[in-house]
C-alpha cells in the first residue's frame, strides 16, 4: 500500500484548528443522518429494498435504458448516447454550438466533473457558470470540489468573504454567511437571466415515464431551466431506475442519508422542455460503466446514489479532507470508483481506510464499500502499486509469526528495545514512529504471564 494519501493529508493537517472543525462538522452531519434514520422504523427495510432495486436495475440496465430512451423520445426529448468523456463533451458542445449558446448556467453534476466538461467548453469559447453556491465558490476560486454534496467545505466564511470581495465586489470585511449568500444570489440571478442554456445533472432517470429527477436545496436546477431556451441533462447510465415506486424509496433516503434533512427542498421532474423553449436534450453517459458491471468483486459500486454519507462518516475522510485523495470523488465511494477508473493512478487511495466499515454500515444502497477496499488491497501487487517497504515488512512478519522459536525469542528480547535512546527510534528512519510514539515493550510477555497463572 502506498503513502500517497497520508502524504497529501499532511497539507490538510497543517491547520489543526480547521482540521478539527472539519472532523466535527462532518460528525455533526453524520449525527443528523442518524436522527433521520432512527426516526423511521422502516429505515433498514428501505436500505434492503434500495439495494435490491439497484441490484436488479443495474443488472437489467439494457432493458431499462432502452425503455427510458424510448419514453423520453416519445415525450419530445432528444436522447444522445456518449461512450466516454470525450464523446460526451463533444456532444454537449455540438448542441450548444447549434443553438449559438454563449453562456451556460449549470446545476451541480459530478458527471460533468468526471468528464472535465467545463474546461472543454471554456476552451471552445463557452462561458460556463456553476449555480450551486458551493460549486460557484470553488469555480470562482479555480478549485475542484472537496466533497460531492458540500463542494466548498474546505473553505471557511473568511475565505469565501475575501473571494467575493475580489470577484463579486462584496463589502470589505463583511464575511457573514447570510450576507455572502445574498451577494451570490444577486450575482447568480443575473446569470440565470442572461444565459442561453441551462444544464442539469440527474439524481434519477425514470424508465417508465422518461422523467429526469433532480434534487436540490437551492432551487438552482429549476432556475437554470426556467429562463434559458435550452435544457441539457447529463446522466450516467447507472442512474436509471424502473418507476415511481422505486423512486419513492430513494427519494426518502437520499437526503436523510446525505445531509440529515427529511427531503431536499426541491425534487423536480423534467419530462420535456417548457412550452416556450427548444426541445430538451438528454445525454446518457457510459464512460466505463458498461465495463465495470462485469467486475465480479466491484460491480456493486454502481449502486451508489451519490448521497455522500460514506465520506461524512469516514474517520479518514473527516481527518484528511477531500483533496488528500487522488480521484475527484473522495472518501470510500471515491476510493472504489477511482480504482475502477484507473487502478495504477488511484491505488494510493486504498490506504485511506481503517477497514472500520462504518461506510457500508450506513450506505443507503448497501454498497459494500469497506469490503471492496479490502479486496482492492489484495490486488495491488498485480497492479504493480504495492509498497515495497511494506511488502518487505510483511514478509519479515510472516517469517517471525510463522516460526515459534523466532517469535518467542523476539518477544522475550523486545524490552531491550526500550533502552534505545528515543531520538534514535522516533526518527525519520523509522516510519512506524511517524505520527505516533514508539510503544514500550513489556519485560515479561503475555505468553509467560499466562503460563505462570498471572493472567486471570
Amino acid at each position: 500500500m502506498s503513502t500517497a494519501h497520508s502524504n497529501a493529508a499532511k497539507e490538510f493537517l497543517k491547520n489543526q484548528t480547521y482540521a478539527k472543525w472539519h472532523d466535527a462538522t462532518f460528525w455533526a452531519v453524520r449525527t443528523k443522518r442518524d436522527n433521520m434514520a432512527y426516526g423511521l422504523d422502516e429505515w433498514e427495510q428501505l436500505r434492503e429494498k434500495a439495494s435490491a432495486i439497484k441490484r436488479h436495475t443495474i443488472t437489467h440496465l439494457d432493458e431499462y435504458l432502452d425503455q427510458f430512451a424510448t419514453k423520453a423520445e416519445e415525450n419530445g426529448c432528444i436522447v444522445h448516447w456518449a461512450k466516454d468523456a470525450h464523446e460526451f463533451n463533444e456532444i454537449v458542445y455540438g448542441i450548444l454550438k447549434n443553438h449559438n449558446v454563449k453562456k451556460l448556467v449549470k446545476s451541480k453534476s459530478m458527471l460533468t466533473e468526471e468528464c472535465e466538461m467545463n474546461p472543454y467548453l471554456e476552451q471552445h469559447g463557452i462561458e460556463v457558470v456553476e449555480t450551486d453556491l458551493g460549486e460557484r465558490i470553488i469555480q470562482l476560486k479555480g478549485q475542484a470540489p472537496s466533497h460531492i454534496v458540500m463542494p466548498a467545505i474546505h473553505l471557511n466564511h473568511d475565505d469565501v468573504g475575501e473571494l467575493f470581495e475580489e470577484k463579486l465586489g462584496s463589502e470589505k470585511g463583511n464575511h457573514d454567511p447570510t450576507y455572502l449568500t445574498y451577494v451570490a444570489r444577486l450575482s447568480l440571478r443575473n446569470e440565470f437571466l442572461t444565459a442561453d442554456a441551462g444544464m442539469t445533472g440527474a439524481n434519477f432517470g425514470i424508465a417508465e415515464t422518461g422523467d429526469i429527477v433532480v434534487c436540490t436545496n437551492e432551487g438552482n436546477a429549476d432556475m437554470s431551466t426556467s429562463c434559458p431556451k435550452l435544457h441539457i441533462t447529463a446522466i450516467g447510465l447507472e442512474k436509471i431506475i424502473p418507476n415511481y415506486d422505486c423512486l419513492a424509496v430513494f427519494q426518502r433516503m437520499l437526503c436523510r442519508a446525505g445531509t440529515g434533512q427529511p427531503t431536499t427542498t426541491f425534487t423536480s421532474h423534467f419530462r420535456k422542455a417548457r412550452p416556450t423553449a427548444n426541445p430538451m436534450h438528454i445525454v446518457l453517459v457510459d464512460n466505463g460503466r458498461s465495463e465495470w458491471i462485469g467486475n465480479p468483486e466491484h460491480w456493486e459500486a454502481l449502486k451508489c446514489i451519490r448521497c455522500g454519507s460514506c465520506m461524512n462518516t469516514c474517520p479518514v475522510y473527516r481527518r484528511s479532507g477531500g483533496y488528500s485523495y487522488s480521484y475527484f470523488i473522495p472518501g470510500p465511494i471515491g476510493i472504489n470508483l477511482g480504482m475502477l477508473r484507473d487502478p495504477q493512478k488511484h491505488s494510493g487511495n486504498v490506504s485511506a481506510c481503517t477497514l472500520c466499515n462504518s461506510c457500508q454500515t450506513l450506505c443507503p444502497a448497501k454498497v459494500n464499500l469497506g469490503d471492496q477496499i479490502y479486496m482492492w488491497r489484495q490486488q495491488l501487487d498485480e497492479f504493480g502499486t504495492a509498497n515495497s517497504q511494506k511488502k518487505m515488512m510483511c514478509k519479515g512478519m510472516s517469517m517471525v509469526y510463522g516460526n515459534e522459536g523466532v517469535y518467542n525469542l523476539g518477544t522475550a528480547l523486545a524490552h531491550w528495545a526500550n533502552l534505545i535512546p528515543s531520538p534514535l527510534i522516533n526518527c525519520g528512519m523509522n516510519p512506524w514512529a511517524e505520527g505516533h510514539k514508539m510503544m514500550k515493550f513489556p519485560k515479561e510477555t503475555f505468553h509467560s504471564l499466562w503460563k505462570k497463572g498471572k493472567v486471570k
Partner: protein
Amino acid sequence: MSNKDDILKRYRANVREKYDMPDLSDIKATTYPNPLVQFVKMTEMVGGQVIEVDSGRDINVLIKELFPDAKEIASNLPEITIATRNPDTVGRARDLNGTDVGIIRGMFGVAENACIWIPQTMKEKAVCFISENLIILLPKSQIVNNMHEAYKRIEFDNEYDGYGTFISGPSKTADIAQVLVMGAQAARSATVLLLPD
C-alpha cells in the same frame, strides 16, 4: 453501429448474474395519526410557514396583510385578483424577475417531509422559483403520509405536461461554512395557505 447499440452490446457482454426486482408492497412505511398536524410541523421545521385559512376569508386580503410592501405579485390563479403579473402572458420568463410574491397551487402535501406536489400549470414555471416570496395554496384535506403514497398519485397537468416538482419550504443552502441560510437561488420564504374544502 450507433453509440447506443455499441454501449448496450458492451453492457450485455459484461453483465453477469441477474437479480430479480424486489417486492415493494411490503414496505412498512411510517404513517401518522394526524397527517395534517405532522405536515404543519415538518413545514415549520424546513423553514416554511403555514396558515390555516378560515372559510369565508378572502385570501387576497390575507396575502396583502402578509406582504404589505409587495409591489409585484405574480399568479395565474383565477381566485387571485391582486396579481400584477401573469406567468401565462409574460413575454419572456425573465420578465417575472423582480416578483415580490408568487402565488401557485399545490395538489397535495406529504406529512413526512412537508413536500407539496406542484405540477406545472402555467406557461412559465419560473414563477415558482424566481419570486422572492412564494405562496402555495393547498387544500387541507389533501395530505398523504409519505412519499410512497405521494408517488402513487402524482399527475402532470394536461396542458403543461412536461414538468412537476415537490417543494418543501424555502430555497436554502449551507454551502458557506455549513451555516444554514434561507433563500439561496429560489424563493426566500415559503408560505403554505391551507384552504378549507
